[in-house]
C-alpha cells in the first residue's frame, strides 16, 4: 500500500484545470473541434452531403446531433478550430451555423440547481463501448469528477442524473424504463454521444427508441464519442452550475 501511495505522489497532480481554466489541447483531439458548422456555400454543402455516412447535412445546415465528427466531408487539410462545448436542442433539429444559443441557455434542466453534489448512473442501451469508457474516464485522475461533486453511483436508486450511452435498442427499452422508475425525483438525462442523441449511425435501426420519449428532461451532447471533458461540461450544464472559463456564454 505504501508503495502505491509513493508511486501516486511521484506522478504528482495530473488533474485538468478545467473548469477554472479552458480545456487544453491534449484534452480535445482535433475531431472534437471539427468546424462542421461553418456556413457552407450550397455547392460545397452538396458535395459534402454526398460523403456523409449519417446524412447529417441537409441543405446548407448540419444536424449536429447526427454528426459523428468523422471528417469524411472535409478536405484533406481540415483545421480543427470549431467550438468544443456545443449541446444540441434535440434529435433531428438542424442547428444553425454557430449553434443555437437559445437552446444552450435553456439547459439547466433541474428546477433548482444542484449546489453541492450530484449522483450519476451510466446506462448502456446499445453502444460500441467507446462512450461507456469515456464516461467512466471521468473517474480517472486526469478528470477526477468527484472534486466537482459529481459521483458515480452503482444503483439508479441513488441517482439524480442518468447518462445514456448508445442507440436505444428495442431490447433495452424495458430495462431503461425500469431504471428511470427506480430513480428518485427530480431526475434528468444526459444523452451522451450521437447514438443516444439521434441514433447517429444507427438511425434506421428497426424498433429504435428515443431518449426523449420518457418524459424526463434531457440534455443532448453530440460527438462520437464526446471527449470526457465535454461530458464533464455537459453534466455541469445539466445541473445548472455557472458557466466555466472557456465555455461559451
Amino acid at each position, binding site marked *: *500500500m505504501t*508503495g*502505491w*501511495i509513493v*508511486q*501516486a505522489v511521484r*506522478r504528482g497532480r*495530473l488533474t485538468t484545470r478545467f473548469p477554472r481554466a479552458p480545456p487544453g*489541447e*491534449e*484534452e480535445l*483531439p*482535433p*475531431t472534437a473541434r471539427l468546424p462542421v458548422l461553418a456556413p457552407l456555400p450550397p455547392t460545397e454543402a452538396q458535395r459534402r452531403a454526398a460523403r456523409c*455516412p449519417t446524412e447529417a447535412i441537409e441543405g446548407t445546415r448540419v444536424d449536429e446531433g447526427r454528426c*459523428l465528427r*468523422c*471528417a*469524411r466531408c472535409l*478536405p*484533406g*487539410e*481540415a483545421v*480543427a478550430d470549431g467550438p468544443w462545448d456545443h449541446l444540441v436542442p434535440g434529435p433531428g433539429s438542424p442547428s444553425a451555423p454557430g449553434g443555437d444559443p437559445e437552446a444552450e441557455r435553456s439547459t439547466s434542466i433541474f428546477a433548482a440547481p444542484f449546489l453541492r453534489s450530484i449522483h450519476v*448512473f451510466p*446506462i*448502456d*442501451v*446499445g*453502444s*460500441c*463501448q*467507446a*462512450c*461507456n*469508457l469515456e464516461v467512466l*474516464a471521468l*473517474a*480517472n*485522475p*486526469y478528470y477526477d469528477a468527484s472534486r466537482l461533486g459529481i459521483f*458515480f453511483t*452503482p444503483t*439508479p436508486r441513488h441517482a439524480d442524473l442518468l447518462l445514456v450511452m*448508445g442507440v436505444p*435498442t*428495442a*431490447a*433495452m427499452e424495458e*430495462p431503461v424504463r425500469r*431504471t428511470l422508475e427506480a430513480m428518485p425525483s427530480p431526475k434528468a438525462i444526459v444523452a451522451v454521444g450521437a447514438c443516444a442523441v439521434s441514433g447517429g*449511425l*444507427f438511425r*434506421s*435501426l*428497426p*424498433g429504435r427508441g428515443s431518449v426523449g420519449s420518457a418524459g424526463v428532461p434531457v440534455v443532448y451532447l453530440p460527438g*462520437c*464519442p464526446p*471527449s470526457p471533458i465535454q461530458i464533464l461540461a455537459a453534466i455541469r450544464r445539466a445541473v445548472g452550475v455557472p458557466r466555466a472559463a472557456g465555455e461559451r456564454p
Partner: protein
Amino acid sequence: MTGPIPWTRCAGQPPSSDARWISYLTADRRLALVSDLTRPASFVVEAPTDEFLGRPTASADGASPRDPRPPGTLSFPYGPVTFGLVEAGRIDLETPGEKVVSAVPRTGYKHRQIDRSVIGRTPRDALPWIERRVGPFSIAHGATFLAAAESAAGAPVLERELWLRALGAELQRIHVHLGLIGRSLEAAAQPVGTAQIAALAEEIRRSMGRWGGHRWLFGLLDPGYPWRRLDRPDLRRLAGDVAGIRRRFDRLWELARGTRIYIDRLQATAVLPRACALALGATGPVARASGIGWDDRSADPVPPYDQLEVPPRVESEGDALARILVRVAEIRQSAELIEQIVDRWPGELREVDPRPGVAPGRGWARSESPAGDLVYDVTLTEGRIGALGVRTASAANWPAFARALEGSVFTDFHFAWESFGLSFAETDG
C-alpha cells in the same frame, strides 16, 4: 447423475494437436456464430443452447444432465443494467449460496444490425459502421474487414497501409489490456492502483488523439482521413509516448505483483484447463493463458508481422492470474512492436498482394484482435458488399467463460469477467 456436472469436463473430444485446433476453430460449429443476415429485426435476447456451451445435452428421457440442482439454488439474472459489466448484457447465474453452478450468457441486447447496414456499400463507405461495432477494437475490425475486402477484390494494397493498421492495432491492444488490468485491481479494492492504471489508459487515449486526431482512432484507416500523421517525427513522438507509458506501467505492475490481496483473488480463480480451452474453441489471451501457443500474428502472419518477431505469450495455469499475466506480457510486447514498426516504417511506396480469395469476388482475412482471432469473410458484388460474415473473438470465448465460471465462488465473478475481457458489443454487432 446428481449435482452439477464437474466443471473440468468438457463435451467433445479435444483435438490432438494445436494445428488441428485451428482447423477446428474455423470449421466447427462455432462458425455458426458468423453473423446471420437473416436475423430478425426485432432481435430476441436468446439463451445459448447447451450444445453451444459445450455441455452434455439432455438425455433421451428429457432430463437435463445438470439436474437436480442442490436444494436452495437461486437463479438470478446479472444485467442487463449493471454498473459492474460496463455494458448492456446479461449473465444468468445459478447458485445455492456460494458456488456458481451455472452461468449462462445472454447476448443480443446491443444488436445494432451492423452487418446488415453495410450491405450495398463500398468497403470504404462501410468503414464507419465496422469501426463502431466495438470502439476499443476499432482498428482490428476495420483492418480485418478491409483486408478481407481487398482479398475479395484481389486488389494489391500499399504496404504502408498494412503497417499503419498494425501500428493502430498494437496501440489499441495496449489500451484494452490496460483497461482490464485496471478494472481487475478495482475489483480487488485497490483504489490507488486502479486510479494509476486508469491514468495510463487515459494517456494512451490522449496519445492516439494527438497522433491520429481521434481518441479511438475512428477514421484513421480511411486514406482520405485528414489526421494521418505518417511522417517520421510524428511517429517518433508517438513511439516516445508509448515507451513512457510502458515504463510507468512496469513500475505499477511491480507494485501490483507484490500486492498479496490482489494476486490471491486472481490465483486459482475461474480456471479453464487446456483441454477445455481446446474443446470449447477458446481464442486469444484466454487460450494462451491455458497453454495454447497460438497467436495469429506469428501463426498466420500478414505483413508487417511476417517481418517482426511476435512469439506468443503463453501461461499454463488457465486461471484469472494467468490471463492477466498474458495481458501484462502483451502490453510489453506491443510496446516493443510499436518501436520496431516505427523504426522500420516503409519509406518507399510498395504494393503487396492480398490474401488469395476463396471464390471469385469472395475473400477473407483474419487478425489477432485484443480479444483473439477475428475473421471477416466478405463477398463483393460490383465493388459493393454483397455478403458479410464475421467471427469475433468475444463470441468464440463465451462457452469457455461460462465453463470457467461454473464451480467458482460467487465473489470471483468480477475477476473472471475482467480477465476474460469479453465484449457484448462485439458479440452482438
